[in-house]
């Protein structure tokens, strides 16, 4: 019987500091046992529990796309006991990854439609997974226009800067990168909060889905913008966070109404969220 609490052993293959305040690092993991990789088959939007023996576990969204073979990537914010310890680890060290957990972005449902991705700060991680997946040649033709509005506080706080530049140069995806503010005279992209840029640049809601991921304050001001653009609550897809331990819907702490964020989520439509108590 599979033990859902047992992590797959992994080795830290690469650590990249993403942001200028050094609080966000991307970890690239390689499975110690190659046969664990196919067992970890995942979809964009899912998360995994990163497990450090002696410290604990943290639930982190998967930043790599299932189309990327041989490794998995997570971007982790340094915020507490386990994440701080992880930030001080080195390439080559051993730890564990348990997953994939949770549900995923309903990309099949979005086939033949336009996709509008609205993201802020370091919530962008699972959207990297989504974008790479969508842009993969064998996937791209199944979807219509892809628009991305992604913002951070300042240029130095943007994630995946090289990849953002590469996507910017493509013509099968429309990028609207923005920062809240900057004093960089060479800044090529937008300046303004994500909700404001969304209102200016996002295409209409006809035959479109909105994928929204960001800090509560961004979501609070983006929601009315999307409503104004005509997105119905069933076509606004969101991803929640909550305090988790087991990640498999058993320990009880991540519950919102009758839903477990770790198992029935973390992806919910806004329509679903509106029917639940606001305890997240």
């Amino acid at each position: 019987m599979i033990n859902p609490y047992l992590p797959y052993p992994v080795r830290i293959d690469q650590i990249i500091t993403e942001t200028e305040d050094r609080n966000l690092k991307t970890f690239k993991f390689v499975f110690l046992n190659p046969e664990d990789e196919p067992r970890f088959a995942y979809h964009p939007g899912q998360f995994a529990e990163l497990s450090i023996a002696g410290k604990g576990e943290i639930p982190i969204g998967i930043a790599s796309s299932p189309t990327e073979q041989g490794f998995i990537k997570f971007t982790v914010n340094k915020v507490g006991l386990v994440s701080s310890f992880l930030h001080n680890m080195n390439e080559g060290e051993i730890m564990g990854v348990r997953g994939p957990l949770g549900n995923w972005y309903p990309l099949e449902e979005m086939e033949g439609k336009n996709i509008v991705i609205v993201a802020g700060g370091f919530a962008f991680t699972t959207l990297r997974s989504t974008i790479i997946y969508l842009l993969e040649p064998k996937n791209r033709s199944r979807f219509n226009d892809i628009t991305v509005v992604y913002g951070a506080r300042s240029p130095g706080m943007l994630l995946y800067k090289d990849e953002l530049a590469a996507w910017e140069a493509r013509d099968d995806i429309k990028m609207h990168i923005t920062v809240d503010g900057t004093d960089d005279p060479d800044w090529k992209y937008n300046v303004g909060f994500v909700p404001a840029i969304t209102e200016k640049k996002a295409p209409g809601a006809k035959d479109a889905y909105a994928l929204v991921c960001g800090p509560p304050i961004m979501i609070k001001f983006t929601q009315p913008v999307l409503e104004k653009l005509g997105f119905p609550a069933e076509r606004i897809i969101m991803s929640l966070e909550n305090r988790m331990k087991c990640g498999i819907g058993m320990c009880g702490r991540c519950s919102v109404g009758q839903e477990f964020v770790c198992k029935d989520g973390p992806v919910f439509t806004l329509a679903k969220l509106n029917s639940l108590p606001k305890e997240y």
Partner: protein
Amino acid sequence: MIARTIAKSVFSEWLSLLRKSFRLIGPVRQGDQINFAPLAEGEGPDLSFQNTRLSPKEWVQPASERLFQFSLDPANTEAHILKEVPWDETPRLLLGVRPCDARALNLVRINFETPEYTDPWWKHGRDTMTLIGLGCNQPCSTCFCTSVGSGPFDPVGLDILLTDLGSAFLAQAATEKGAALLQGVPQGTEPSASDQSQAETLKKEAEQALPPQVAVDRLKDQPLLPLFNAPFWDEVQFACINCGTCTYLCPTCWCFDIQDEVSGTEGLRMRNWDSCMYPLFTLHGSGHNPRDQKLQRVRQRFMHKLKYYVDKYGNGVACVGCGRCVQFCPVNIDIRRVCNLMNAFQAN
């Protein structure tokens, strides 16, 4: 299903026979309480109780349980890799459990054995456990099992149900496992007609002593958000001191916390009982806490047991009416009263 009458004079002989195949766990007097504990050689269960203080859930899901062990020794090639703690395969027998507590295990199983995942430790704890229950001739005034779909002689969840006839027990098998145990037991005799009718009478009298006092019929149809925002929660929550007693004594509370502990170069990952009554339960690493107000936590407990569980699994409420929280809440918050408030609530 087969039944046997076992005279009390040979009851301990039967126990000795059972000891050959099981580790016996039964009610034992501990100070002014009775709790389930391993029965020492020659020790019989103390059956002079209405119910134990702590529910027997700790024998399926221990209050503190080792899950994995690991080494942090740099010289160890397997360091930092979690290994399951060895399993104890000893079959155990829980003797004298009340029907409410046995049924509770069935309600809890729905959480730990799901189509997607199985919790191996809970499943193992439950599967290695055989349950011989004791029907309640004298239910407590705080019991309300009959209001929530159970009863003082409810065999659901038990392998064998014992009825105390005075000088003997009537043992009725409720599962194949129970039938196999009763088959060919030398201390058991075929029950007489008067044994059977006496047991029936005891059952009826006990059920009559428990008229319905809690209404649950409208809970499923209550619209969720109006019930969540009902004005009565402010009154219900005031006295609560978030002490956690209700969750620790409750046979259907299962929430747990996972912790790592290290000593030198050895470590283990364990889980401990946890409670939605504590603010730490939902505290995010960022400092944000969706339930940092007492009202939210108190409401969560009752909504979970009496509404979310009902909606999620369609299996009735997550309460078996054992009455422990009613008796031991230090500030007398009464789930019977709250359930009636919830059931009767009319959204405008």
